[in-house]
């Protein structure tokens, strides 16, 4: 489902954010990506979501070589991918519900169904009743959960989450991970970037470890010492 073959990424005016990374994730598999700040976790997720293109190597998602995806294809690809952004990326002047509905608007879902599904997604992240608030009137952790609701609302085939629990307390973080695991269970491929070792130990999934852009470890589920 997601395959990296000798993928490198070098930003203009920077060093190598990723350096010869290869791995493959099956459909309905879930994995963590971890590593120090600046190790390349976000970059890896951005390549899968087609927010960036690799400088070298091949990224394949859902059997499609992303190098061949252009223009309209990019928007289409992103509609099939749900992404939680490390910096949330909410529209601050729209209500929480409008934010969560956004992927459904783009996909052309009718208004009534949009509202229903948005409300269900917000319920799942523990934000039931906050539909009409503006994101600026939420705590940061609440904002992060709005971003999570937006990523899952369209039930994407691929779910990417970049540090989705950086502003959540440990208990809530575990709940969110369980939610992601549910998506895995029904067939989504899930990739979560995190530096939270506690979480990685609790949720026993495969772990990819980055160090200065290189994939230095690929631990199967359960291999992580508790």
């Amino acid at each position: 489902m997601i395959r990296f073959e000798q993928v490198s990424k070098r930003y203009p005016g920077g060093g190598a954010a990723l350096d010869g990374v290869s791995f493959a994730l099956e459909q309905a598999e879930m994995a963590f990506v971890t590593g120090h700040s600046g190790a390349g976790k976000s970059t890896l997720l951005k390549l899968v979501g087609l927010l960036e293109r690799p400088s070298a190597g091949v990224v394949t998602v859902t059997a499609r070589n992303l190098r061949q995806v252009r223009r309209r294809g990019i928007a289409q690809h992103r509609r099939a991918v749900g992404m939680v952004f490390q910096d949330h990326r909410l529209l601050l002047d729209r209500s929480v519900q409008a934010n969560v509905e956004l992927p459904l608007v783009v996909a052309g879902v009718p208004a009534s169904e949009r509202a229903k599904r948005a409300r269900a997604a917000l319920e799942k992240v523990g934000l039931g009743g906050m539909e009409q608030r503006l994101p600026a009137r939420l705590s940061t952790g609440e904002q992060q959960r709005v971003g999570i609701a937006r990523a899952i609302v369209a039930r994407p085939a691929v779910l990417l989450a970049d540090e989705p629990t950086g502003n959540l307390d440990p208990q809530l973080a575990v709940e969110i991970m369980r939610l992601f695991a549910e998506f895995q269970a029904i067939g989504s491929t899930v990739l979560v970037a995190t530096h939270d070792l506690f979480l990685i130990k609790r949720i026993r999934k495969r772990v990819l470890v980055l160090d200065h852009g290189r994939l230095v470890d690929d631990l199967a589920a359960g291999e992580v010492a508790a």
Partner: protein
Amino acid sequence: MNAPETRASAARGGALARWWRAHRWALAQSLLRLREHPLGTLLTVAVMGLALALPLSFYLVLLNLDRFGQALGEGQAVSVFLQAGDAQAQAQALARTLRGEQTVAAVTLKSPRQGLAALAALQGFGPALAALPDNPLPWVLVVEPRVAASPSQIAALVRQLRADPRVALVQDQGPFRARLDALRGFGARVMQVLAALLALAALLVVGASVRNDIQSRSQEIEVLQLVGASAAFVRRPYLYAGLWLGLLSGVVAVALTMLLEAVLAGPAARVDAAWGGRLGLVALDVTPLLALLLAAAMLGWLGARIASARHLAADEPA
């Protein structure tokens, strides 16, 4: 929990329903946008409306100057001075002949007595001329060409009169008419250039407004792109906003022009009255007004199109 789905397939209904939903959303967004910055919208519409009102007003003025010019050309009749000493019978005979000409609208006979009276009315010469022992003035025929007569037809008539042995002198305003025609042509060309320039200005103004909007919404645009909005989807609200701005400016331009028309109605009527109501000054009719509205809307759309092409960051990952 349902199985995951790609979002494209998540949409209910056919392609048409999806298309309509997307447009309805864009429409609502564009209107919200204009309402969010009422002062900016007002300013844009005012400036753009003014830019569009100018050529329209110019067109209106030119239209009337045209009529006025025709009337002027008409009023500048050909004066035919007969030989001194010619009798009334001879003058009337020539007048009859001329009235039969196709190019002639009217002929007025002026007797030497009338000539002297007119001369006496000239400032200060009254008492002096009253002392004249004898009337030294000739008969005069004032020949008014038809409005439809072309300059060359009138020139032929003048030539014919000059060849007549009864005629001492012909005064013709032909060169004046020719100059007026040239002026009219020049005015029309100036108007075309001005209209083009002002349309460009209007385009710039609406483009700048839409660009401002795009730049102040860069974050929103990025988020839309991140959740899979196509370029057309992202662009659409801005195009609609441009359309509205253009249309509103058109309305302002029409209103301004009609205001000008109302303000000028008084003086124009007075001028018309001075010409004995023969000018028949024209008001703008509905066709050019509708054309302006349409043009304004299209200009707005075009300005938004250009601005979005230039300033909407292409959604191409590097």
